[in-house]
């Protein structure tokens, strides 16, 4: 399979895996439980690319996404990996 990297596409925002230590802090800061966050499917094309970089990403991990925003310029959002 050709090693196509979706993250390099202009329309795909930056994705990062959040480490376990940071995870707790972020959730505390946001004041929400994990299952209240938006979700991203395990089968998402982005996750396949991220796994190449970080190794196996288990269900329940936190993904940090940095998007362009028409109102704020840059905006950081988080998603939880769920099985599909």
């Amino acid at each position, binding site marked *: 399979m050709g090693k196509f990297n979706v993250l390099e596409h202009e329309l795909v925002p930056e994705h990062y895996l959040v480490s376990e230590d940071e995870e707790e802090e972020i959730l505390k800061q*946001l*004041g929400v439980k994990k299952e209240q966050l938006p979700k991203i499917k395990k089968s998402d094309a982005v996750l396949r690319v991220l796994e190449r970089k970080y190794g196996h990403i288990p269900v329940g991990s936190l993904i940090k996404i940095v998007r362009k925003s028409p*109102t704020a310029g840059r905006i950081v959002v988080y998603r939880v990996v769920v099985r599909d």
Partner: protein
Amino acid sequence: MMKRAFGLTKRINSIKFALLSPEEIRKMSAVKVITADTYDDDGFPIEKGLMDLHMGVIEPGLRCKTCGGKVDECPGHFGHIELAMPVIHVGFVKNIKNYLDATCRECGRIKLKDDEIEIYKQKIEEAKKMGASPIQLLLINKKIIDEAASRPICPHCGAEQKKITLDKPTTFREEGRKLTPKEIRERLEKIPDEDLPLLGINPETARPEWMVLTVLPVPPVNVRPTITLETGERSEDDLTHKLVDIIRINQRLRENRDSGAPQLIIEDLWELLQYHVTTYFDNQTSGIPPARHRSGRPLKTLVQRLKGKEGRFRSNLSGKRVNFSSRTVISPEPFLSINEVGVPEAAARELTVPIAVTAHNIEKMREIVRRGPHPQGDKYIPGANYVIRNDGRRIKITERNAEDVAKKLEIGWIVERHLTNGDIVLFNRQPSLHRMSMMGHLVRVLPDRTFRFNLAVCPPYNADFDGDEMNLHVLQSEEARAEAKILMLVQEHILSPRFGGPIIGGLHDHITAMFLLTYQNPKFSREEALHILSYLNYDKLPEPHRDENGNEFYYGKDLFSLILPKGLNMEFKSKICDPTVCNHKCVYEKCPIDAYVIIRDGKLIAGTIDENAIGSMKGKLLDRIAKMGSDIARKFIDDLTRLAIGVISYRGFTSGIDDEDIPEEALIQIHEIIQESIKKADELIELYKQGLLQPAPGRSLEETLEMEIMRVLAHARDEAGKIASRHLGLENPSVIMARSGARASMLNLSQMAGSIGQQSVRGQRLHRGYQDRTLPHFKRGDLGAKARGFVESSYKKGLSPTEYFFHSMGGREGLVDTAVRTSRSGYMQRRLINALEDLKVDEDRKVVDTAGNVVQFLYGEDGVDPTRSSGGENINMEEVLTEVLGEKYLLRRRK
């Protein structure tokens, strides 16, 4: 009277849906209905009939045979009908189809191997733990069913499966052979409880075979009351009619079956029973004709009662009718504040405010009660209509007992006092499309019969006075009044959350008047100035100027400066600014057309006040003042509208068709220009016919030609307009309105004076109508300007018959567009509201739903409230710098 519950809030934890089992239907039934009759000859309910007294009472005087209650006490009780043969419930055909597909026709097990069953069960458990929504769970079930349905052989008993098709609405066939509801029910019975969760059924609350009815519940008579007409004729409810049909056929079916009638007759009757039961649930089932009333009107059965705009949900549960409200025609009243609403006396006497009697106000309340419901006198004073005693009893005050009730008044009673000046009420105009459609106003009781308000408040309500009606609601609790005053008062809504600018502001005459007051700074004598200022509450004239003869006079700009708040500094360009005058090099205060506004410490130094300063939605000055605080803004708009009325009614302002008079030679010039353009269009057509036209990139030859012609003709109209406007100066009232932004545009004027121009439908020149031509007045295939909807005439000159027809075609498009747009955007709005209605912004500016799920990590991703923004932007550096540095910054900015 109903008791109010205080401090009792409960949260719904979960909702469960279940099916009624036949046993349950029998258990909750008060009577087994066996006769299709309703009343006997004396008008008394027949026993075991559809109006049996066990099912509740609707006639006064009778008592319910189940609970013993009278008409208003008995809630009604269900009855039941034993169906001779089972029938399918239309609401569940889809489910039944799924279950038949997914299970074995022999052993009834779901067609999945044991290990698969285990895996899927785990998956469902896991999804539930992850907080999956019912829709997500439904999707999992759907997947399981699809998987099981695709198996041609049962993995449990090895039986071969046959294809089942659904013949809408309620007939199932297995490879062409009809399955009777009885057979279907038997198959569903065979499905074991353990397999049900995979199909999306909770075996504790439902069994699939209950979707095939053997017993039919009969709703209480309260649900389907008999109506007695004035003539004494009785008329039954649609549901009762339908139940009569069901019972009749049911009985015939039973008799025929018991007497061993031929199978064919039984099947026919069975199908008829199925039809009646189907239409009893839903009379709009596709594939079968709706059951009709004797008059030919389709019956309104169960689904019709609930569904749609007029259904129970949207009409009675989501939308309720309220007391303490009124509705009447609206009209303008420029002498009211924007915060006020004029309420007709008749309405004020009917609408009441509950006031609790305390030690502090008891004497005052006595006085109000003593006045009774119709206080006399020239001046409006509030009376009272009711008092509510401590025990909750309501006493109506009449002229006769007013004195008596007033004497007996005690602390703790509640007096329902008439509306009076200063009460806060909610005022609303439909369609309520945004939050400014319902605002808080302070009452002013006025004579006559209309609601009145300041014209500046028209834009948020989108109201005009061509017969519009509006609603008014009187708040009944102290909390509501406080909320309305703080959050809903008109002055808190001057800035719109839609675009972060003012939506309440000067319009039409206000703008014209301010233009007349400030443009080129006219002079007013002392008398004139006093007359104009008498519309305002100012007791001091500004410092007068003196002319060469020593006469006192006042400048218009000084009069305007009176209403500006102190400490205001700003500069901006007026609407009338025309960069061609100064060759795109602004000369600021020296502007020859007085189009550069300079305000220093609340004084207008230079410039013209027009739409760009005070117009609703556009006013820069207004925007700044609105951000100085709502009280200051309210005062400014109140003063502005009053001053405007003063100026314009003193000076006088009128406009007529002779405003568009232009000299004969200009008309000839316009005619020549247009003829020339028409000729140019003809040349283009000739070029096209000879095949010499060069196509524009990405367009066909025809498209290019159309484009070029449109361009040439649009240019002709613009040129004609330019010539016309050369003869229309700023001393012309119509031009004043157009240039200052009060109403109309220069295009409108040039269409009146010069030429109307090309008419179009869907952005193209007119081309449809007859074969290859728009009208039979032209040759076939004529592509010329006149034949394709170009109108040379002006509105003033009048249109030729063909031009008139073309103009109507173009005009029709506009009408159709608005008609289509309103209905479409209404539906879009409804869907948006349903999707977003219970989202909220929480303490740390996250957007969350009711379950706390995050929708947006920061409201709007930038956390900015558009009403407190400046045109949607976070901060306006210009404003901050002006405030801090004052004139220094404004002068530096010019460079």
